[in-house]
């Protein structure tokens, strides 16, 4: 399939309007690789045919396009270091300071759930049994939230980054797949949130993971998201961003905290 400039423009404007994700010229390959399977799935002869049906206002097709364009690569313990920092610094520190023996964590742009379950496994390992906790996973895609609730992953997905001790402890073999055990699945709540819009009432959090999503936004949207995160982060709370992301030059109300090879951010006192 070859992508016409007018089709690319239509898709990038629609995706930006719905999700604030910016697809610069040059990202035609990404649109082609993400939308060609969707075009086949809906029986369109090409991406141009898909765009035509979008323009005619076919119900729910725009949601599917946004889903396809915003679903990003993820894996268990992706980059590893942030989870080491969570395990060895952030959670022990929050436990020591917590007055009500409760920790709230939000994992935004949680994709198919590997990241929230990674966080859940680390929390279960570190939090004393006298503590309670909540873990909210949000994503713009209902399909990804469904996958998260199901907690079912292929052999290839569990091979990626998941320590084998965690696999045997927290997963059941179901056919050729592996499913997160009900006990761990029940600790992760899901909700659809579009980060580029004002947040619905989410509550307050001690830790926020928002990794590898700001890179897709333009600078004003990045700044707005970071500002909204500050409003839901409790004093002393931590924000984790992706390895290629930073608050620097976007929102100077954050201070950088480096621990071993990981970096997190806290609102300035």
């Amino acid at each position, binding site marked *: 399939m070859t992508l016409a400039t007018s089709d690319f423009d239509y898709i990038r404007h629609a995706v930006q309007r719905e999700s604030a994700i910016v697809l610069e010229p040059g990202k035609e390959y990404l649109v082609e690789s993400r939308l060609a399977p969707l075009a086949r799935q809906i029986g369109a002869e090409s991406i141009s045919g898909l765009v035509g049906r979008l323009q005619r206002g076919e119900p729910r097709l725009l949601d599917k396009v946004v889903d396809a364009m915003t679903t990003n690569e993820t*894996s268990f*313990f992706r980059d*590893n270091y942030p989870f080491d920092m969570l395990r060895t610094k952030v959670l022990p520190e929050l436990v020591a300071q917590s007055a009500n023996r409760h920790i709230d964590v939000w994992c935004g742009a949680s994709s198919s759930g590997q990241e929230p379950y990674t966080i859940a496994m680390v929390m279960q390992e570190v939090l004393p049994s006298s503590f309670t906790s909540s873990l909210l996973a949000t994503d713009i895609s209902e399909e990804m939230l469904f996958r998260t609730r199901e907690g079912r992953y292929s*052999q*290839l997905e*569990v*091979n*990626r*980054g998941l*320590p*084998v*001790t965690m*696999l*045997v402890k927290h997963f*059941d*073999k179901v056919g*050729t797949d592996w499913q997160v055990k009900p006990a761990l699945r029940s600790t992760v709540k899901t909700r659809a949130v579009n980060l580029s819009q004002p947040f619905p009432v989410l509550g307050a959090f001690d830790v926020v993971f928002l990794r590898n999503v700001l890179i897709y936004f333009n600078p004003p949207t990045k700044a707005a998201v970071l500002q909204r995160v500050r409003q839901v982060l409790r004093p002393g709370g931590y924000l984790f961003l992706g390895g290629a992301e930073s608050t620097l030059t976007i929102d100077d109300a954050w201070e950088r905290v480096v621990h071993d090879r990981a970096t997190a951010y806290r609102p300035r006192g």
Partner: protein
Amino acid sequence: MLALVLDDSRAMRMILGRIMREAGFDVVEAGDGKEGLERVQTGPVPDVALVDWNMPVMNGLEFVTAVRSQPELRRMTLMMVTTESEHSQIVRALAAGAHEYVIKPFTADAIVDKLSLLGLVA
């Protein structure tokens, strides 16, 4: 850093050998557990061994058990790379002394991710 690739399939040894070389390891190979054991007992002790389960002469589980019984080989990290994918089999391998486990088929990223978890690559 030295890696032992232990698999009875020549093609698999080639694939794993290439992944390990690209990750910065020198690589030695063996086609069954007995040959692998002789190699680690007579040559330099590898930092890590990638171990298939089903091999002739001596299988991967027997190799892991034999390595774990020898104190001079204690520093060697053992990673199973096998088609054996049942929960109970994985638990057996861990109980025998394997540190990590990758189920075939795998991607190169999966091997590198596990090496990273084990602190063997940055």
